[in-house]
Every structure is written in C-alpha cells, then in structure tokens.
C-alpha cells in the first residue's frame, strides 16, 4: 500500500498527459479552472479566529490564538506573527507523524511571507507597551485531507482565520496590563491570496489535485494582494519554468485571485 503512491503515477501519467493534450484534466476540469472553494468561518469558538477551507476534497483548518509576549528587538513597536503548519498523518497516507519536515515548513514560510509582505495585519496595532509587551499572533494550520494544493488551502485558511478573528481589548495602567472582556476585530488591512500552478510536461494547470501533483514536474505559487500586486512567489519541484510560463501564471493567477477574493467575501458576508 505504501508502494501505491509510486505505482499509480506510472499508469496515470499517460492518461493525465493524454487528457491534457485534449485540453482537459483527470477530474474533468479545464486547465485554467480552479476547484470550488468553501469556507467555514469561526468553527473553533475557543480560538480568536478560525476557518476550515475546502478546495475540492482538500481540507485545511487554521486557528488564530493571541498570546501576550515580547516584541522582537528590531521591531519594538510591533506585534509578532508566527505561522506554523503540520501535515499530520490524519490527512494523507503519505504523511508521517513527527515534527514538521521540509514540506510543512515550506508551506508555513510561504504563507507567512505572503501575509507579511502584504501587511495583512497591522502589527503596530498589536503593540501594547512599546518594547515590552505585544500580542503574539499564532496561526496554526492543520491539513485534514490532502487532495492536492495544500499551499493554497493553507494560505486561504490562514487568511480567512485572520479575517474573522476577534481579539481582547486591553487596558494598561502603570505598566500593568489588564485583559478586558470586550473584543474587537483583528486589524486586517490587506489581502494575501495564493494561487498555485503545476507544470506537467509543457502544460500548465492551476490548482493541481493530488494525482496531478504526483506526476508534476514543477510547481509555482504566486500570492496576490487586493490590488493585483504579487506579495509572494515560490517555485517548487524538480522541473523548470521559462520566463514566459512564469508571466502566464502571474497573469492568470492575478485574475483567479480576484475570483477567490470575491468568493471569500461573499461567504463571509453570509455569516455576518
């Protein structure tokens, strides 16, 4: 059974490639077609914010927790943002228990880069006492079912968990901090929406499913803010891209990021 991951590709590779030649994919999508995204907001009441994101059968949960902590010495007036991803064995027969490996860490760091570059959260508003006490924002991302494109699902879950997060108000008097009952929304000011492509042979598909990922040559993730600017890029996999391919992904990714943003906004409004 452990071997199945290696055997399937050999057989499926040709099928998938033949379909791509005809302009379609193993799951019936077009090459530039993203799967349906559904978001459940605030599923974890005990977290400051949380979201379960489904991209097709891929399912990821993210939770945001706020902890009082120290600022970094080079940013004494800013809160702290920490992103952590675990590809737990619950989500896929190919994941093993143990501390995060290079794949978990890569996802966490790319999500982190996107949020940080776009300044998703106004970290200065998380400063309580300059140089002494700030909110540390932990975003913990757990894969629940892996059917490809965990990068986008993780990035979206993190962003959606921030979007609906509420944080306790605090009062400070003589350096002593009192956490109040009242909560206010996290100061989320910008968007970071990742869109991932897979290159299979000379074809490029968006939002690869698990079987496509198994045989893909290379991967390219671009993350976009609300103005269509890129806030993170990550190339993955053993293959290569040409400059034209990258610009193709960038153009298409920008368009798709707008659709995704629209969809998230709609789903968030539905619950409010």
């Amino acid at each position, binding site marked *: 059974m452990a071997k199945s991951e290696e055997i399937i590709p050999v057989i499926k590779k040709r099928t998938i490639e033949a379909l791509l030649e005809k302009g379609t994919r193993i799951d019936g999508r077009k090459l530039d077609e993203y799967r349906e995204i559904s978001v459940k907001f605030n599923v974890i009441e*005990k977290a400051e914010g949380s979201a379960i994101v489904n991209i097709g059968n891929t399912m990821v949960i993210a939770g*945001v927790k706020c*902890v009082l902590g120290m600022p970094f010495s080079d940013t004494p007036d800013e809160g702290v943002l920490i992103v952590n991803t*675990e590809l737990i*064995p619950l*989500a896929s027969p190919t994941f093993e228990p143990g501390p995060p490996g290079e794949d978990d860490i890569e996802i966490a760091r790319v999500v982190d880069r996107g949020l940080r570059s776009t300044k998703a959260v106004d970290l200065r508003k998380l400063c309580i006492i300059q140089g002494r006490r700030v909110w540390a924002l932990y975003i913990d991302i757990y894969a*629940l079912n892996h059917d490809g494109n965990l990068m986008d699902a993780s990035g979206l879950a993190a962003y959606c968990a921030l979007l609906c997060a509420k944080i306790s108000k605090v009062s400070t008097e003589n350096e002593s901090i009192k956490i109040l009952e009242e909560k206010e929304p996290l100061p989320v000011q910008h968007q970071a929406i990742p869109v991932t492509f897979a290159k299979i042979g000379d074809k490029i598909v968006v939002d690869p499913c698990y079987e496509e990922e198994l045989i893909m040559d290379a991967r390219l993730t671009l993350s976009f803010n609300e103005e269509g600017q890129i806030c993170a890029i990550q190339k993955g996999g053993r293959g290569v891209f040409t400059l034209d391919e990258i610009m193709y992904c960038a153009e298409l990714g920008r368009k798709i990021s707008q659709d995704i943003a629209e969809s998230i906004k709609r789903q968030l409004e539905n619950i409010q």
Partner: protein
Amino acid sequence: MKGKICLLNEEGLRIDGRKLDQLRPIKIEVGVLKNADGSAYIEQGKNKIMVAVYGPRELHPRHQALPDRAVLRCRYHMAPFSVPERKSPAPSRREVELSKVIRQALEPALFLEMFPRTSIDVFIEVLQADGGTRCASITAAAVALADAGIPMRDLVAAVAVGKIEGKIALDLNHLEDQYGEADIPVAMMPGLDQITLLQADGLITLDELKEALKLAKNGIMQIYKLQKEALKSKYLESGEELG
C-alpha cells in the same frame, strides 16, 4: 482549585443546565475524510474531534511489524488552538499517555491476529477541547474503525463520570472536570459488558466508584446507540446496507 465555583444549583442542575445523569448533546458523522480508510467526526458539548483510520496496511519501518498480528498504533493530538491558552504543537506527556490508554481501550475490540505484519493506525485530532476528550475520541475512533471495514468484536463507547459537589455526575465538561472532586473516564464494549478503559483522579470511596461505573454504563449505552445510528445513516445514504 477544587470547589471554588458552584457546580450544582438549588434545583440540582449543572452549570450547563443538565441533570446529573444527563449526557451533553452528541453529534457523530461518519466518513468525513476522503483519504482515510475510515473516519469519524464527533461533537460532544463543545468538544470537536476528528478521527482517521488507516489500515490494515503495510507497516513502516518493517522491523516493527509482527509476524502473527497487526500492530495497532494510536496518536491523540490536540491542535494548538483547541484550548483557551495556546498549546505547543509538540506532543505533551499527557498526549503520550492518552495515546497509550486510548490504544489499549480500542485494542480489545479488534481481531489483530487476522492481519499479520500490518498496522492499523488511528489518528485523533482534537480541534476543540471541553472536558472528556479522551472518551469522545474513543467513541469516534471506534466508529472510524468500523467505517474502515475492520472487523470488531463490538464497538467501544466511552464517557467520563465524576463527582461534583459530592454527587456522582455523568459526562463532565471542562469546568466540572477542573473544579469537581473526581474525574473517572470509562470505556466499554457495551454489547459485551466489558470495561476497556478505566482511570480516575480525585478522591472517591468504593461505593462511589461502584455508583460511578453504573452511571457510566448507562451513558455508554446511550452513546452506543448514537454510534450505531451514525454508522447506519451513512450506509443508508450511500445505498449500501450494514452487514
């Protein structure tokens, strides 16, 4: 910490309005994860727990495989955001112990000798915790094992009983667990009347233990019914029949 807040009101009702012998609302969903061979999701009060079962499957590393039976492996893990104060994602000593006792609570129900050289893996992810997570995990894990088509002597159902304000109570929530006088998690194969998990902390007399175990059995029979309904509804939905 014990007894600092009032856990029973004048009418004998608990802080969440329940009677002493009443379970919290329980919801069980079967087959919620596509990749797993079997899976279940349980909500019990505010507990939210996801369970996946993989196997029987080839065991890696191979030298851990047994020639005459399957190895049952179990990982109980709490998501960092599942509790009020963020929990480190690394497994705590508590999680290591619970993984062991949950495994030993499930093992009596399985015919491991039918699947030599393989492993059966139970992965439990506590998404939100509100007291009694090990018991809810066992309840859900048994359903997930059945969903994986793994032959079982019986399901395993579990519930914690405890003592609050001197009274034996069923299915403690987090506050009752924290401020009550005792907490006693129990798991059974209900159809066989056999106890597969028993723990206790706090102080109880022998008579109280007996009373607690009877109350636990009562709750477990109710949970057992919910487990079977959940399994049935999945297979009716999908047009299949239960064997």
